């Protein structure tokens, strides 16, 4: 039996830089930031003042009303991105494939708006007034559950909570479910909606977030003047498919996932991240020289960025080009790696690099950007030292 291969055949996203892949690409191509002053709630008494915020999303276009009232925003985002991704892949989940299709989602801590609502109901009105959807709307697996119900998906599926690598974990296990033959198809991605008073306080207490009020100077990956991570919200869902199956149905293939690795180690020392990138390269059969671009964890936390840059320099030298979409979206946590993968796929498809890169440790805008890139490395790393690396290849 030939080794099974995994390709990406559909994408969907709602994030601070756009609803849908076109709007998103337009924003990152033109270096247009989705970070702004938080208007979702009054931030007078809470520490985080700016964030990557989604505006102008008409959720009723994607989620039926009866589901909407029973679910939190983080599930709404995931359902919207899923609908787009399935449409983009032009695939229907049917009786035929539903048992071999899975859902793999990264999400941190579930629904923050419903969490606060539940506490308010409990303490102001009493336990008998807590809404009946609290249990199923709050917990992180709600997105997986509702996606599976809405689309009739019955295959092996899981939800991951692992800080900044929640979405990367979902991708790692989702793609392996196809490699190992458990699934032929998988919706993988992440979703996050932390923009509530309690949610932003929680993330702030991680000690890694920026409390800056200057939207132009806040999210500065790899910049020594960075004030920390800027929080963002949104969801990206990717359709992963077994290669032969994708060929059979003449699907449009964005790219192939040829390398993947996960390691854990000291969060200040770069060695476990180096090991992770090397393992992913070995798996993909690529040398570091064949990698044309890196989409890093690069999140604006000075310690994390310094560690990653050290690791990248050791393996790839000074000349490798790095793009940092988190500069524009903020950190989407559970949705961050799926969004980075999406960015990488769009770069390969458009044969164009977004209008800001890091090269030779320098940030650059306005440079010749049109070029064919066939192999991209995507990194993710968590605050306590878990690393994931993926190699994407253009096989068209």
């Amino acid at each position, binding site marked *: 039996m030939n080794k099974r291969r995994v390709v990406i055949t559909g994408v969907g996203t709602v994030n601070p830089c756009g609803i849908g892949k076109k709007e998103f690409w337009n924003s990152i191509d033109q270096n247009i930031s989705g970070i702004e002053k938080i208007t979702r709630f009054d931030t007078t008494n809470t520490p985080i003042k700016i964030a990557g915020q989604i505006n102008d999303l008409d959720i009723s276009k994607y989620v039926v009303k009866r589901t909407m009232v029973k679910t939190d925003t983080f599930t709404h985002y995931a359902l919207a991105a899923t609908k787009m991704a399935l449409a983009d892949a032009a695939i229907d989940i049917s009786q035929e494939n539903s048992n071999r299709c899975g859902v793999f989602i990264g999400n941190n801590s579930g629904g923050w708006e419903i969490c606060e609502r539940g506490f308010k109901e409990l303490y102001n009105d009493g336990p008998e007034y807590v809404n009946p959807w609290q249990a199923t709307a709050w917990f992180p697996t709600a997105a997986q559950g509702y996606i599976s119900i809405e689309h009739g998906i019955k295959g*092996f599926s899981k939800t991951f909570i692992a800080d900044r690598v929640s979405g990367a974990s979902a991708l790692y296990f989702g793609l*392996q479910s196809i490699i190992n033959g458990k699934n032929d198809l998988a919706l993988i991605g992440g979703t996050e909606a932390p923009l509530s008073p309690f949610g932003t306080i929680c993330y702030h207490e991680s000690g890694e977030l920026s409390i800056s009020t200057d939207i132009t100077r806040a999210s500065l990956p790899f910049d020594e003047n960075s004030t920390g991570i800027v929080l963002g919200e949104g969801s990206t869902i990717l359709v992963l498919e077994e290669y032969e199956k994708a060929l059979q149905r003449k699907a449009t293939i964005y790219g192939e996932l040829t390398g993947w690795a996960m390691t854990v180690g000291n969060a200040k020392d770069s060695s476990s991240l180096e090991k992770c990138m090397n393992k992913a390269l070995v798996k993909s059969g690529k040398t570091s020289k064949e990698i044309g671009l890196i989409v890093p964890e690069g999140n604006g936390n000075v310690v994390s960025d310094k560690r990653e840059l050290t690791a990248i320099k050791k393996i790839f030298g000074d000349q490798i080009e790095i793009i940092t979409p988190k500069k524009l979206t903020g950190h989407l946590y559970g949705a961050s790696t799926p969004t980075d993968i999406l960015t990488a796929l769009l770069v390969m498809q458009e044969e164009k690099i977004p209008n800001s890169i890091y090269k030779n440790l320098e940030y650059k805008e306005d440079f010749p950007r049109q070029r064919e890139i066939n192999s991209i490395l995507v990194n993710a790393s968590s605050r306590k030292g878990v690393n994931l690396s993926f190699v994407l290849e253009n096989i068209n």
Partner: protein
Amino acid sequence: MRVGVFMKRVVITGIGIIAPNGNRKEEYWNNLFSGKSFIKEDPLMVNMGINSTVNCTINDFNIDDFLPKGSLRQEAKGQADFIQYGVAAGVEALKDSAISRNSICGDDVGLIFSSAIGGTPTIEKIYRDLSNQGKNDLVYQAVGEHFYNAGMINYPAILLANEYNFTNICTSISTGCTAGLDAIGMSYEAIKSGDVKVMLAGASEAPLTEITYATLDIINALSVAKGEPHTRSRPFDKTRAGFVISEGSACLVLEELGHALARNATIYGEVLSYASNNNAYHMTNLSGDATPMVNVIKQALTEGELTTSDIDYINAHGSSTKQNDLYETNAFKSAFAKEAYQIPISSTKSMIGHSLSSASMMGVISTIGSFIYEKVHPTAHLEIADESCDLNYVPQNVLKKKVKTGMVTASGFGGIHSVGVFRKYQEKR
């Protein structure tokens, strides 16, 4: 070492458990076989005026009893209970497996942990503190890192990885009441794939707080059964009326057989197969015909190259809700046909309630107890037969039986069903 050359076999070589009926595995098994329930009335639940008033709690837990002085103990101490339980069970499992920081190659060891709702009690307390007992809007005060960590289900795994210098995969899942079994299944698959030789699979739950009681009570999930408090979890009984919420943590060391044999590890059992799916039907309700669960049982049998007659014990999800126990019974009848009536089936939840993610991992440990002691623990307080639930649930008293192959089932919110099959270790599979 001829076996395992062509297909990697995965065995269990370490057990850690923090449960209401025992913080050590021997105590846990002894109490299970005696049929003793640890469920009690909870004054807080009574005071809240909700319908259900019983739970099952960990008693006398002190992390100092499990962890030596040092940075891990220091770091775990200030964290949410589920983190403390998880770390303690992890340390116990590793000790039980004779794995220390320097006895094993860290690159060969990975971790998958799980929890359904993580540090909810800590989060609730912080909410109260920042909102004048819930009366006002939130006003920020510095809380500290433990707030973020309380939501971070991966935290126990990370602490253990750093302490023991394990450097392979490390992640955590949150798939509710199937999560413990899922952590085992995914660890088993990771070893089978050859990416890792030893996995620490964990599940930890400490959900006992007002918001949990209120949210589960309002949807009538919690037990309102009549009778003495300790009898109110009575799976498969005609008068069952909801599950009893509980807490606890479990952790298993899973290991590639060759690796275990090479280091002379104690082998408690073998993981034969694992399967999991979505019913794609409803977040909490179950469809009438039990097909999704039948499918996952059949998948697990196929994956393990087993037939129905190989299974001689089932540790059931048996949550004591009207719906689950009937659904599960129907699934067993459909998957096992006539044999369903012969196989002893019992529910650990009859004695220690339902600790969400960790419940299914405790079910696996119960099954391992059956391998070792040649006994099947009873379904306690199953006194009044339900004509629709008419299988052999080992009511009330322990059953003496040599168990060779046991199946563990779990179902949970989100419409997930998971099944694992475990076998008493023998050289030739």
